């Protein structure tokens, strides 16, 4: 039996999902073509259940022709599916509008009145028993955050599936019911797409729903379509309003009537702290000041923690490498391979623990308190100038820590266009590894101002690339409409789960690549292939870009791990005093090039996972082209300045 969690955004579906599936199962995040749903399984009273957590939806009514992947999933669900409609009980009236649409599907269903603790605080009492009678399906009160009632909910869902408890349909006003009856009659005994109830199909015809309309195409003749259109026109002549708006209003009234029959609104227990907070945090002046302070604080904290902890790990691995050198003959291929594995493994630890862990914890904190969405609101205007939305700021911010979680975070964006542009920009953000190159080369051998200039130039470059991309791929969405979640005190368990979920992505995708890359590098070194490689790359590296030919190998292996480029450069040119071998313009150009030329392998893998191999390759090609042009430009301009 498959249990599908359906609900509006912020209703607490995922919290319930995690409570049941949690750490116990190997729940995998399966990104679909445009938006992911999470699949997991668990055991309940000795029975194995499959649970699917769909992204939040406000309605089954498609607001654009492309349709919503979550809605598609519900329409395509197999026959033994039980819908678990999770409702934020504190916004019951609005939530019931989705519930009423789900009842039209005529599938086994249960309702979770979630956040019932919040409801009490708001002074609302809900008669769950009465709601269950009106809807004809079990209604279970839950508090997802503490897990209260969650297992009862799943037991009720299993029972609903076994006994096929299908909800009642609440009829609308007479004129709408008459139209629906005529449309249902028109459908007659035509075979309908699998699993779709005739009344549901009639409603979708009334709403001119493209998503269901496409499914119906093979089932309806041209005459059928003409007859449907005629009936809708006739109907709209009397209502003087588009049928889909009429239906929306009908549902709204039904939901409100249902709400009034089951809920009593008293006086709230506490004041509205959230709104008072937002007066300050969302204010055009104080809001921005606090935003800057929060982000600066977060970065400083992460980098402080990271740079303090990193040497501890690296030291440990250096000792391990020394020990290995004693065990295996240093000139053997075996040593090269083992050393590569250890170095790659150590590199992974050196990123995960010092930088990613604090970063993810900080991000999860921002997310769970509800502040992250506020950041998106505050940044929306600025991001629009480069053709994006406020939410794009999240992956870009993360990119300063590590591009891999940055790219993976583009998932929070709805359209593929936004994910593509944001992911491209995120790979151009100097991550902490690239920071070490910028400060280690330009900062050390030229000046600190020059290093800071790279960051400023980078922001300009990102603005330009974003602007160009948004011109090439124009915006189609109907404009920002976003609900802001309530402020909440984060729970430790939820923070830990979220952090672990994201860390796992790094461990599974990036780490193996770091290790493999290190092994390749060692083997390469073992056979002394650097010379031929440098000769091969020379026309590009020294001819076009103007670097010493010896740096060719560093560029190739900088792909494995960006910060390696610095260490390899010292080895390649035979000295740590770079300035004695390279001119100022060469150092500047080299740093600039190495920092931005292509995403590191792990980032490439993340790009491929989110957007596909071809797109990842195109992004790489585009950044390489842009940076080549800019480096050649620098080569011509910098000597004029100095």
């Amino acid at each position, binding site marked *: 039996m498959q249990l599908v969690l359906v609900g509006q955004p912020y209703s607490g579906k995922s919290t319930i999902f995690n409570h049941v599936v949690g750490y116990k199962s190997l729940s995998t995040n399966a990104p679909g073509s445009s938006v992911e749903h999470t699949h997991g399984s668990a055991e309940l009273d000795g029975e194995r259940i499959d649970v699917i957590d769909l992204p939040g939806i406000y*309605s089954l009514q498609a607001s654009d022709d492309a349709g919503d992947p979550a809605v598609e999933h519900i329409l395509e669900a197999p026959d033994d599916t039980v819908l678990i409609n999770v409702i934020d009980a504190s916004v019951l009236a609005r939530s019931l509008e989705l519930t009423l649409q789900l009842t039209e599907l005529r599938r086994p269903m249960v309702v979770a009145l979630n956040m019932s603790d919040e409801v009490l605080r708001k002074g609302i009492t809900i008669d769950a028993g009465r709601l269950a009678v009106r809807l004809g399906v079990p209604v279970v009160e839950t508090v997802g955050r503490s897990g209260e009632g969650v297992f009862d909910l799943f037991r009720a869902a299993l029972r609903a599936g076994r006994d096929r408890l299908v909800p009642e349909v609440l009829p609308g006003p007479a004129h709408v019911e008459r139209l629906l009856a005529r449309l249902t009659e028109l459908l007659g005994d035509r075979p309908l797409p699998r699993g779709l109830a005739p009344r549901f199909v009639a409603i979708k015809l009334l709403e001119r729903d493209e998503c269901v309309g496409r499914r119906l195409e093979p089932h309806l003749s041209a005459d059928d379509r003409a007859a449907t259109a005629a009936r809708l026109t006739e109907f709209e002549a009397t209502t003087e309003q588009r049928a*889909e708006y009429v239906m929306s209003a009908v549902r709204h009234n039904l939901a409100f009537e249902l709400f009034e029959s089951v809920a009593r609104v008293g006086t709230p227990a506490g004041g509205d702290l959230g709104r008072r907070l937002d007066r300050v945090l*969302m204010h055009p002046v104080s809001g921005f000041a606090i935003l800057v302070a929060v982000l600066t604080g977060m970065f400083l904290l992460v980098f402080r923690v990271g740079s303090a902890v990193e040497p501890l790990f690296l030291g440990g691995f250096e000792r391990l490498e020394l020990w290995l050198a004693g065990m295996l003959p240093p000139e053997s291929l075996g040593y090269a391979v083992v050393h590569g594995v250890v170095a790659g493994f150590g590199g992974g630890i050196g990123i995960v623990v010092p930088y990613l862990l604090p970063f993810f914890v900080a991000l999860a904190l921002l997310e769970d308190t509800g502040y992250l969405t506020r950041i998106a609101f505050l940044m*929306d*205007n600025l991001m629009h100038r480069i053709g994006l939305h406020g939410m794009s700021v999240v992956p870009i911010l993360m990119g300063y820590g590590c591009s891999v979680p940055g790219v993976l975070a583009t998932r929070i964006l709805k359209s593929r266009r936004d994910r593509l542009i944001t992911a491209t920009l995120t790979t151009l953000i100097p991550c902490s590894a690239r920071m070490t190159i910028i400060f280690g080369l330009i900062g050390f051998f030229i000046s600190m101002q020059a290093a800071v200039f790279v960051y400023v130039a980078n922001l300009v470059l990102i603005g330009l690339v974003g602007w160009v991309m948004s011109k090439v791929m124009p915006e189609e969405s109907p404009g920002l409409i976003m609900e*802001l979640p309530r402020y909440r005190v984060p729970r430790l368990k939820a923070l830990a789960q979220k952090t672990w979920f994201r860390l796992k992505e790094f461990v599974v995708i990036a780490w193996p690549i770091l290790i493999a890359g290190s092994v390749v590098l060692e083997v390469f070194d073992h056979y002394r292939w650097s010379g031929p490689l440098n000769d091969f790359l020379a026309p590009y590296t020294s001819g076009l870009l103007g670097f010493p030919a010896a740096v060719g190998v560093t560029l190739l292996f900088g792909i494995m791990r960006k910060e390696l480029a610095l260490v390899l450069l010292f080895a390649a040119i035979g000295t740590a005093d770079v300035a004695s071998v390279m001119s100022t313009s060469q150092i500047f150009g080299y740093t600039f090039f190495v920092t931005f030329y292509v995403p590191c392998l792990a980032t490439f893998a993340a790009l491929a996972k989110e957007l596909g191999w071809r797109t990842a390759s195109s992004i790489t090609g585009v950044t390489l082209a842009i940076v080549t042009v800019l480096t050649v430009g620098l080569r011509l301009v910098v000597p004029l300045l100095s």
Partner: protein
Amino acid sequence: MTVRLVECGRGDRVRIVRIDAGRGAALNLMNLGLDVGHVVELLQRSPLRGPLLVSHDGTEIAIGYHLAEKILVEKN
């Protein structure tokens, strides 16, 4: 007095009288309870045609400036 939502100030409580947006945007607004006849409170505006923040029925909703231009409201 009927004005566009963008012409209202912080703290104004207004009733929506017409939504001139396209089908998709109108449906999205309706889904969040922003429908003709409903009362919303303008909580926050942002400079330089940034998004607006309104509150309706206990939820806070951000609306892009260009969409808010198409929402006609009546001040009480």
